[in-house]
C-alpha cells in the first residue's frame, strides 16, 4: 500500500505544477510590430554596430546624416539628418552639410541642463560622434570606415594614443562645425564611396551628455534622434521600443520603383513617420521556436529557416497553400552578397599554382550546392559583384565556374598533380557550426573527385577569423555582405594594400589589378567605370583567388496585417512598417 500513497503524492505535485500554468496574456496595442532577431544584440552603441543584429537595433534609435531611399532600387542616398545632399567642392574633396534645424534627442535623464528634455541636435554632435569612432581607447569596430579618409583625423587618433587619453576639444582640420547647423568634412583623397559610409549605423550621431553620464553602460542605453525610444533592453532576450513623440517631421516617401504603387507600398505616402507605435523584438537563437511563433501568428515578419523550407514553399518556389490561405505574403529578393572559397595566395602550394585553383573551381558544382544548402534560393556567382549593383554583368559566364570534371582533371595534370598524386592534403579551415560542418562535408566530397584531399580544422568564429588574418590554412569558406551598395565594396577585397589582416583575406596581389582599382576610384558611375570593373573581374576569373559561390536570395514571410513592408539590404526600415489588425 505504500506505493499507492506515493502515487497520490506524485499526482498532486504534478497538479500543483500545472496550476501555475494559467496566467492571462497581456493586452496588446493594435499598432505593435513583433520582430525577431536571430542572434544576441550585443549592445546599442553605434560605434560597435558591426553585426546585422546590433546594426538593425541601433538604427531604430539613432540616425546619421544620410539614409537610403526606402523604396527606390537601385539604392539611392537621400538626406536623413542633413537638410539636403551636401555641397561638394570643385576638387570633390570637401563636403558641406546643412543640418536640419529643430531636431531633438530623445528625452533622457542625462540631459541635466534641460531637466531631462532632449536638447537640439547641432553640427558639433557629428564632430564628437566621428571622433568617438576614431578614439583608440574605445576600439570601435567601425574605424576602418574613416581610417585614412578625413584630413587630420588619423593625427588626432595618434595623438590620443600617445597621450593615453583622447582630447575631444582638440580640433581636426577635416572635421569642422563652422556654425551651429553647418558641418564641413574634408577628405584626403577622392573616395566615391565616402557618402555611403554616412548612411551606416557606425556614423550615427550620439549625444555627448549621454555618453559621458552612462560611461561604460552607454551601450545598454539608446539616446539618439531616431524614430523609436528604448523602453526595455535585455541583450539576449528582448528589446521594446516605443514611438518617439518628439521625432522630427519626416514623412513616408511618395515615389518608389515600378510596381510599388500596385503593391500598395505608396498608400501611406506623405504620412508622418514612424508608422508603428511600438516594436517588440524577441531574440531567437534557434530557428524552430522562431518558426513556430511565426506560424502561430505571434511574429510579424520572418525569414524562412533553411530546414523549414519544404513546409513553407512549394517546389515551384511559391508559397504553400496553408500559408497563403492565412494571407501570409512571400517576399523574394536577391541579397547584395557573395559566398566564396578563398585560396590563401601567400601559401606556397595553392597560392603559386593557378591550374590547381582553376581545377578546383571547375569541379565545385554549384547546382547541388544551391539545392542542398539554399533550397534553390541562390544564384550561382560568376564573379564578385552581386546583381543589383552597377558593374554586375548578368550575361557574363565565368569559364572556370561551369562544372566540367574532364577539364578539371586535365588542369590537375598541368598543375603537376595528375589525379591528385603528389599533392599533400590541403588545410581547410572552417567554423564549427552544424551547417558549416555539412558544407565542409560537401567540399570534401567534391574536391575528392579530382584527387584533392582536405584536412579539416574547425574553429569557433573568432578563432577562425584569427586564423584567416594570420594567413593560416590554405582554403576556407566565407561570405561578404555589402557594407554599402557599390561594387567598389566587393572589388576592394582584392586590392593588395588591403591584404590580411585587412579585408583582402586571400592576400591576392596583382599590380595590374591594383592599378585598375586605383583608376576606378576616381571615376564616376558610368560606362567607363563599368568597363574598368569588367577588366578587373576578368583578372580575378583567370587568377582564381576565390572560387565564387553564390549570391543568396532572401525569402521572407510577412503576416497579412503588416503594411508597407519592402525588403532592404540596409538598416532602418522599421520606421516605415505599420500594423493593421482587423478589429
Amino acid at each position, binding site marked *: 500500500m*505504500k*506505493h499507492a500513497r*506515493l502515487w497520490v*503524492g*506524485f499526482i498532486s*505535485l504534478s497538479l500543483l*505544477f*500545472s496550476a*501555475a*500554468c494559467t*496566467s492571462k496574456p497581456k493586452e496588446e496595442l493594435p499598432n505593435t510590430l513583433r520582430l525577431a532577431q536571430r542572434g*544576441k544584440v*550585443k*549592445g546599442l*552603441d553605434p560605434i*560597435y554596430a*558591426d*553585426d546585422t543584429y546590433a546594426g538593425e537595433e541601433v538604427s531604430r534609435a539613432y540616425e546619421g546624416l544620410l539614409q537610403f531611399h526606402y523604396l527606390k532600387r537601385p539604392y539611392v542616398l537621400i538626406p536623413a539628418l542633413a537638410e539636403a545632399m551636401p555641397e561638394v567642392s570643385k576638387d570633390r574633396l570637401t563636403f558641406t552639410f546643412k543640418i536640419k534645424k529643430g531636431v531633438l534627442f530623445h528625452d533622457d535623464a542625462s540631459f541635466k541642463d534641460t531637466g531631462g528634455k532632449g536638447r537640439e541636435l547641432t553640427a558639433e554632435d557629428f564632430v564628437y560622434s566621428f571622433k568617438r569612432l576614431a578614439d*583608440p*581607447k574605445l*576600439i570601435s*569596430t567601425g*574605424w*576602418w570606415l574613416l*581610417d585614412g579618409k578625413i584630413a587630420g583625423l588619423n593625427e588626432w587618433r595618434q595623438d590620443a*594614443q600617445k597621450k593615453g587619453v583622447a582630447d575631444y576639444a582638440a580640433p581636426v582640420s577635416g572635421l569642422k562645425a563652422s556654425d551651429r547647423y553647418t558641418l564641413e568634412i574634408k577628405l584626403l583623397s577622392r573616395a566615391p564611396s565616402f557618402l555611403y559610409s554616412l548612411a551606416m549605423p557606425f556614423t550615427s550621431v550620439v549625444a555627448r551628455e549621454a555618453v559621458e553620464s552612462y560611461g*561604460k553602460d552607454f*551601450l*545598454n542605453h539608446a539616446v539618439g534622434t531616431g524614430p523609436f525610444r528604448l523602453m526595455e533592453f*535585455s*541583450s*539576449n*532576450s*528582448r528589446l521594446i521600443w516605443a514611438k518617439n513623440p518628439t521625432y522630427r517631421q519626416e514623412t513616408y516617401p511618395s515615389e518608389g520603383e515600378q510596381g510599388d504603387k500596385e503593391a500598395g507600398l505608396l498608400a501611406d505616402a506623405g504620412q508622418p513617420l514612424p508608422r508603428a507605435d511600438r516594436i517588440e523584438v*524577441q*531574440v*531567437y*537563437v*534557434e530557428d*524552430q*521556436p*522562431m518558426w*513556430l*511563433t511565426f*506560424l*502561430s501568428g*505571434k511574429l510579424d515578419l520572418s525569414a524562412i529557416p533553411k530546414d523549414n523550407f519544404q513546409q513553407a514553399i512549394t517546389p515551384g518556389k511559391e508559397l504553400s497553400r496553408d500559408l497563403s490561405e492565412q494571407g501570409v505574403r512571400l517576399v523574394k529578393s536577391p541579397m547584395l552578397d557573395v559566398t566564396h572559397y578563398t585560396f590563401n595566395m601567400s601559401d606556397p602550394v595553392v597560392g603559386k599554382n593557378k591550374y590547381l585553383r582553376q581545377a578546383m573551381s571547375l569541379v565545385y558544382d554549384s547546382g547541388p550546392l544551391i539545392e542542398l544548402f539554399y533550397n534553390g534560393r541562390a544564384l550561382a556567382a560568376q564573379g564578385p559583384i552581386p546583381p543589383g549593383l552597377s558593374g554586375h554583368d548578368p550575361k557574363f559566364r565565368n569559364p572556370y565556374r561551369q562544372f566540367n570534371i574532364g577539364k578539371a582533371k586535365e588542369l590537375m595534370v598541368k598543375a603537376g598533380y595528375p589525379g591528385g598524386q603528389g599533392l599533400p592534403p590541403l588545410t581547410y579551415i572552417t567554423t564549427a557550426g552544424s551547417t558549416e560542418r555539412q558544407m565542409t562535408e560537401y567540399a570534401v566530397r567534391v574536391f575528392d573527385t579530382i584527387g584533392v584531399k582536405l584536412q579539416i580544422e574547425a574553429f*569557433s*568564429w*573568432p*578563432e577562425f*577569423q*584569427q586564423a584567416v*588574418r594570420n594567413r593560416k590554412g590554405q582554403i576556407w569558406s566565407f561570405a561578404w555582405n555589402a557594407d554599402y551598395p557599390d561594387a567598389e565594396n566587393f572589388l576592394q577585397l582584392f586590392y593588395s594594400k588591403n591584404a590580411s*589582416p*585587412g*579585408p583582402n583575406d586571400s592576400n591576392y596581389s596583382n599590380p595590374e589589378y591594383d592599378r585598375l582599382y586605383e583608376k576606378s576610384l576616381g571615376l564616376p558611375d558610368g560606362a567607363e567605370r563599368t568597363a574598368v570593373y569588367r577588366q578587373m573581374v576578368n583578372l580575378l576569373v583567370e587568377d582564381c583567388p576565390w572560387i565564387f559561390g553564390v549570391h543568396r536570395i532572401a525569402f521572407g514571410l510577412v503576416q497579412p496585417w503588416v503594411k508597407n513592408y519592402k525588403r532592404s539590404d540596409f538598416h532602418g526600415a522599421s520606421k516605415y512598417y505599420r500594423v493593421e489588425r482587423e478589429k
Partner: protein
Amino acid sequence: MFAYVVRKLLNTIPTLLGVWIVIFVLFNVIGGDPTYIMLGKHATPELIADVRAEYGYDQPMLKQFFRYLGETVTFNWGDSRATRQPIATMIHDGLGPSLTLTVPAFLVTTVFSVLMGLLVAYFRGRWIDRIVVIGCVIGMSVPMLAFILFGQYFLAYKMGLFPIHGFDPAWPERFHHILLPALIWVVVSLGYNVRFYRTALVEEVGQDYIRTARAKGLGELPVFLKHVLKNGMVPILTNIVIEIPMLVLGSFLLESFFGIPGIGGITIAAINNSDFPVIRAMTTLVAMLFIAGNLATDILYTLVDPRVRLK
C-alpha cells in the same frame, strides 16, 4: 565546534588556490589571447596591439595571475570580449532567469526521484524495479534535444498548452514561460537521479546493521523505513548539495531554445565566441560555489551528527 568550523574553513584555502591555478593555467597560459573577437572583419596590427595592451595580455604571467586573483576576489571580472558588457553584470542579470528555471525544476526532480528511488529500492529485484531501471536508461539515452523539439512542436505549438518561446521578467508571469522547459528538465534528469538514489539506498540495504536489525526479527518494511531511509539520507543529501552549485549554470539547451536570458545561454554564446574571460569567470564562480557548498555540508553534518567530526 567553533574550532572545527575554523579548521574546515582553513582547509578550503589550498583547494581554492588550486582551483585558481588550474583555471588560470588553462585559460591564460595555454588558452592564448582572444583579441580578434573585439575587432571584427576589419582588424589591423595596430588595433591588435592596442587591445593586447588594454587587457594586459602583453604582461608577464605572474602579473596576469595576480590580476586574475584580484578580479576574482572582488567579483569584478572586467568586460566580455564579445559584448563589452561587464561580466559581473551579465552574471547578475542571468542568475534570475536561470534560477527561475532550475530551482523549481530541481526541487520537483529531487522529490520525485527520491520517492521513486525509495519505491524501487524497496521492491528491488522485482518487475517494477526492472521496468523503472529500463525506463531510466531510456530517459538517459534519448537526447534532451528530442524532448525539446517535440515538446515545443506538439505541446506548445500544436496543442497550445505552453508558450512557445520567450521570458517575461515580471512576477509571477516568469513562471508561465518556464513551465515547459522545467517539465523537460524534470523528464530528462529523472532517469539519472532515480538510478542514483536507488543505488544509494540499495547499498544501505546490504549493510551489516541492517542484517542485524533483520536478524533481531524486525519486518522488512520497518527495517526499510527506520534504518535504510535514515542512513541512506546521507548520500542523498550529499548528491543534492553537489548539484546545487550546478543550478547556477542553468541549462545550455533549454535556455537557447526557449529564449530564457540565463547563464546557460551566456555560457554557450561565450563558447561560440571564444569569449575566454566570460567562460573563465563562470568556471571560477561555479567552482567557488561548489567549494562553499561542500563546506556547508560538512558543517551541517556535524550539526546533525556530532560523531562525524571524529572521523
